């Protein structure tokens, strides 16, 4: 066959076994990632299941108009951005600090122990995190109301109904779960620093503090910058688990806990409003994509080898 000859010439036929090996992965990505991408046009349709996906009516930007006409759009965008920014700043600062401290521990056993415990929260599911938060904040029996507020004569709080507390609660929970992981990544970078730098510094009489500020921090700065920039690329994507499980999906505190991801989930599977779900979802994808590409451009300017693409 002529086409087969063509294939042979390009060398594809010779590598057919490699193509077969890559094929399952290619197909799975097609299903999981590419087919949904074609679904973004749903944001411009009035989806109804009787007419089917193709038969549904085109309605232009009406879904978006509806989304922005309600107050929802601004609230979820504000929440998503503010949470992610504060998570990023707090997590980075604490993780670097923690990594620097972990690096100072000389005793091998102690070092292992500290690393294991700070990273443990990272490996439990968000569901368990939800249970832990509930243990502390249960309005009638929770530890915080019963053993912290009551003994000091303070009024117990109905936590799952009072929106104003949640920015702090969620920030604490997020830090608790994630900071150990980041710290160990930074620690790996610190351990990788050539010991000659420190030896030379010691000969010059540099103190531990001087070594930390003049050697360690400058040398791990690139990886801090890269991790930060990558996180900025994801700033429009919230951790669904955190906002769903830790809040126990309480509707009364939406004002400060609803983020784009939980909003899309609710619109899709709870209220069944596919128009809002798809327009909010598309908004998220487009802004997310733009951010990733922009951030990557910046990374390429800062240090070429660290760019994602």
């Amino acid at each position, binding site marked *: 066959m002529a086409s087969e000859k063509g294939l042979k010439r390009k060398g594809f036929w010779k590598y057919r076994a490699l193509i077969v090996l890559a094929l399952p*992965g290619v197909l799975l990505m097609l299903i*999981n990632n590419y087919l949904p991408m074609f679904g973004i046009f749903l944001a411009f349709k009035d989806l109804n299941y009787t007419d089917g996906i193709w038969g549904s009516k085109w309605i232009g930007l009406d879904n978006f108009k509806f989304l922005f006409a309600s107050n929802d759009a601004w609230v979820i965008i504000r929440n998503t951005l503010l949470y992610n920014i504060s998570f990023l700043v707090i997590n980075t600062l604490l993780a670097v600090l923690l990594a620097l401290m972990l690096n100072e*521990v000389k005793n091998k056993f102690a070092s292992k122990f500290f690393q294991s415990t700070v990273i443990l929260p990272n*490996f439990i*599911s968000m*569901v368990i995190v939800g*249970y832990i938060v509930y243990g502390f904040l249960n309005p009638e029996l929770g530890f915080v109301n019963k053993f912290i507020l009551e003994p000091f004569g303070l009024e117990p709080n109905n936590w799952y109904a009072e929106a104003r507390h949640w920015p702090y609660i969620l920030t604490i929970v997020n830090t608790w779960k994630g900071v150990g992981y980041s710290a160990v*990544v930074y620690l790996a970078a610190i351990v990788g620093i050539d010991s000659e730098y420190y030896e030379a510094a010691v000969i010059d009489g540099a103190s531990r503090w001087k070594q930390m500020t003049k050697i360690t921090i400058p040398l791990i700065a690139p990886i801090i910058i890269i991790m930060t920039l990558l996180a900025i690329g994801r700033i429009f994507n919230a951790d669904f688990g955190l906002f769903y499980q830790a809040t126990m999906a309480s509707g009364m505190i939406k004002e400060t806990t609803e983020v784009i991801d939980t909003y899309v989930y609710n619109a899709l599977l709870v209220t069944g409003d596919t128009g809002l779900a798809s327009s909010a979802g598309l908004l998220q994808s487009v802004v997310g994509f733009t951010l990733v590409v922009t951030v990557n451009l910046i990374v390429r300017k800062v240090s070429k080898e660290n760019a994602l693409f």
Partner: protein
Amino acid sequence: MNSKRTNPVIIIVLTLFSLACLIPFWLVLMISLADEDWVTVHGYSFWPGKFSLVAYQYLIEDAEKILRAYGVSALVTITGVVVSLFVTSAMAYALSRKEFPLRGALSLYILITMLFSGGLLPWYLVYTRFLHVQDTLMALIIPGLIGGFNVIIMRTFFTNSIPPSLIDSSQIDGAGEFRTYFSIILPLSLPVMATIGLFTTVSYWNDWFTSLVFIQNEKLFSLQYLLTKTLMNASFLQTIANKAYSSTAQVTTPLESIRMAMAMIAIGPLVLVFPFLQKYFVKGLTVGAVKG
């Protein structure tokens, strides 16, 4: 490094930090062990004045739901991890071969999946209207099978740790690509397989979101999803605790401690294996931190 001893201030701060990571688990354990009457008066505490194992007795008497959920989670995790390791490493191996003509195109194909997503609604429709896998175990397995980042980590490992001459010589000896992949590449890749395998295990085991989206049938509830239901839905919690003691109706069911006992049953295995896995986790993080 000049001083051999660690600054005591650092030790104190790190100890406090470690305690902050451990204490919440302790609270959950203590609630699960607390006597219901004591708790109703005094609240959840780190050291309940009265202990009781009743919550665990309830769960043992009526273990069917939990055992089934354990089974679903185990089945999904084992199948998912095995298939995922195969699919990921096979794709990564093809990508690691410098002479493979589709190398560039496939890399781009993977990169795009890491940059752009269609969002929840189209993804949901693909699974429910196109694959029709809702309410089957496939819905829990398929989404986690491949991730661009894992493919890239494995590809980097293959390119850096397996000398091309090894592949050449095995092919001169007459081994085909499949033979090379199975008997040369895989045995040499245990470190990266262990690392990625552990991360995949944790993400399958901890997954509750795909169940939330796709599963209605109670028989297919995974452990984490059963826990989600138990946490959020008091009447569902009641059905978990119902059977065994319903005849001796006088006793109040210790719902709060049953809830926390369920959490402990889910945390237990992880805490037991964690010390053994920890060295792989840390190694894996380092692998993950180095960009492909």
